[in-house]
């Protein structure tokens, strides 16, 4: 099923992106081996000029990588009408064994790409290319990651077969059974929400400390990844249930649909941005040790941590609002009497 416009676009983006990153690998090797700012040789000057090309290309490619994550999920949801038993993106991704790995890899590439972009941004603030080796070293990790993600995505799309009417007999009994319930959904909503509150609280505490003292951004980065995981789990176990107002519907994708007012975007966009920025804060802080970045790196770190905290805060606010407006009572009110007056009746 390659001849589908969105699929062609996704394949095009991942192919071009992987090619661009792979093509800059030989240059990365050269930088790692021969980079020497003290030298005024021809090749050093040429390399310095070329870093601009590679950075610009990668910014474009990585931004397209981020956009393609959204397009991928959106398209998976849209294609569900083509498969028997698929009702949303989960069904489409379950059509073959490469569906979910593609999604996970795309999310990993998203975080790796945004980390690289922060690194690039920090590096560009210093006049003497202070992080150039780290940057191109990181590219060595990013390139295979992107290649694997592109390959798995290709395998996934090649393996898709729409259930269309066959001329011999009807295909209706090919019935793929759809299982939405995950291990994630098995966690009790109280536990997952409590975990989310704890994780968000820790993130906020660590963030305040990082903003005040300029230290601890690495801890903040780790915590924001933990909070990201907790938040995703809470979405599956509890938040989505509140949105659907059905105790057994745990789908993390259906909240993106128009029926629910695309409310999922209000949850996911701040969450992904917050986690990525938190990661960026952790990357920016160690750079402050370099002399030429002593002023710029802490500033970038503060900005990253601040925006990340705002993102997590927004996610939390949207969550509270969703639970508040929901007509579903998932957790017995008596158990919450201490701190919540309960949702709407």
């Amino acid at each position, binding site marked *: 099923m390659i001849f589908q416009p969105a699929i062609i676009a996704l394949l095009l*983006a991942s192919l071009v992106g992987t090619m661009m990153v792979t093509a800059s690998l030989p240059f990365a090797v050269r930088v790692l081996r021969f980079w020497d700012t003290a030298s005024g040789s021809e090749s050093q000057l040429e390399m310095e000029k070329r870093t601009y090309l590679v950075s610009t290309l990668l910014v474009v490619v990585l931004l397209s990588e981020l956009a393609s994550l959204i397009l991928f999920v959106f398209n998976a949801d849209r294609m569900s009408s083509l498969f028997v038993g698929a009702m949303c993106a989960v069904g489409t991704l379950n059509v073959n064994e490469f569906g979910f790995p593609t999604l996970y890899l795309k999310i990993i590439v998203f975080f790796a790409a945004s980390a690289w972009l922060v690194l690039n941004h920090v590096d560009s603030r210093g006049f003497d290319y202070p992080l150039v080796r780290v940057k191109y070293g990181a590219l060595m990790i990013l390139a295979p990651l992107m290649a694997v993600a592109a390959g798995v995505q290709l395998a996934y799309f090649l393996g898709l077969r729409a259930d269309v009417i066959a001329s011999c007999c009807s295909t209706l009994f090919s019935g793929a059974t759809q299982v939405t319930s995950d291990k994630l959904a098995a966690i009790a909503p109280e536990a997952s929400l409590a975990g989310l509150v704890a994780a968000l609280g820790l993130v906020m505490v660590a963030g305040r400390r990082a903003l005040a003292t300029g230290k601890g951004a690495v801890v903040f980065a780790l915590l924001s990844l933990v909070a990201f995981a907790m938040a995703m789990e809470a979405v599956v176990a509890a938040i989505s249930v509140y949105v659907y107002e059905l105790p057994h519907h745990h789908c993390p994708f259906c909240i993106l649909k128009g029926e629910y007012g695309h409310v999922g975007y209000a949850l996911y966009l701040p969450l992904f941005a917050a986690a990525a920025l938190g990661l960026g804060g952790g990357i920016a802080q160690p750079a402050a040790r370099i002399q030429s970045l002593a002023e710029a790196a802490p500033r970038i770190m503060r900005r990253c941590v601040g925006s990340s905290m705002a993102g997590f805060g927004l996610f939390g606010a949207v969550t509270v609002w969703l639970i508040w407006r929901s007509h579903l009572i998932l957790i017995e009110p008596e158990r919450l009497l201490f701190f919540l007056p309960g949702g709407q009746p």
Partner: protein
Amino acid sequence: MRLWLNKQRNLLDFSLSSLSRRRGKTLGMLAVYTSIVFLLASVMLFSHAIRREAATVLAKSPEVLVQRMVAGRHDLIPARHLDAIKGIRGVQSAEGRLWGYLFDPAAVANYTLMVPTNPRIEPGKVVIGDGVVRARSADPGDLMSFRAHDGSLVQFKVDHTISRDSALVSADLFLVAEEDFRRLFGIAPGLFTDLAVSVRNPREVIKIAEKIDAALPDTRIILRDEILRTYESVFDWREGMLLVLLAGSILAFAIFSWEKASGLSAEERREIGILKAVGWETGDVIRLKMLEGLVVSLSAFLVGYLLAYAHVFHFGAGLFEPVLKGWAVLYPKYKLTPFVDELQVATLFFFTVFPYTIATVVPIWRAAIVDPDTVMR
């Protein structure tokens, strides 16, 4: 933040004025870019609109169709199958349908013959669709005659015509009474073309289909969902095919924009040289040039998309109609319902802006690394 915004605004100001200084080049680029977006957007808008049209039409069709198969071919189905189906719990109603195709040598076209059950048509009368009216220039009260299966003449009097509003499905319709239908084709009473089954609860459709399959092994069962799915993927496939064919033009466009971006005039090179001499860094020049590209991209995208919208929904998509719609003598005249889809816009963005941006990165970089002293000499 304020500072940052101001900086971006000034940069945008500068890039707009530098674009307007090279008016000819910018307009040429815009024209090519716009036509590429227009081409791709037309294909996408058209196929999406027609897909929706098909879905709305099919929404009213019966949930399950049962056809008898003999030696792998569709055959007439006996009425006794109806009783077997009606006995299944959950079936709301089941009725036999009579339909077929009739070739009219006078119009050199095929009509779709159907026997409507509600309201019934009187024997000897016929109700015709818009396409038939045009092909035969028939008016109510006119007589039309056809040769039946045994060579005898069957005559119909046009009762009335179907309004053009539903032309997409009714253009080639030719509605007759059951008696006339059977006489025309020599179909014995008690035989139908196929059976239409309606099911009360949509979640039971698959179970009921399974039961019909078990009770009547010589039939094939077609679900409405399956028809929808098939249409969907057929249109997807056609749209994708056309896009792949147009890939050549996207590639040509990428090469064109590469050429345009790398063919810097002496004037422009001097400009960049001066900028660098007054303190701009390579990164700033790249940012400026990217911003120029962004301005061109977004304007071309907007204009191209709007033109495509007008082309498809106001001028009937004359350019691609035959490829996407298929072809027939009695083609309906109709206007598509305007419909814009977010996914489609995002996809189109990937098809046009992404190649353009990638293709211009290297030329922009080349322009940005020039040394001020070499160009100002």
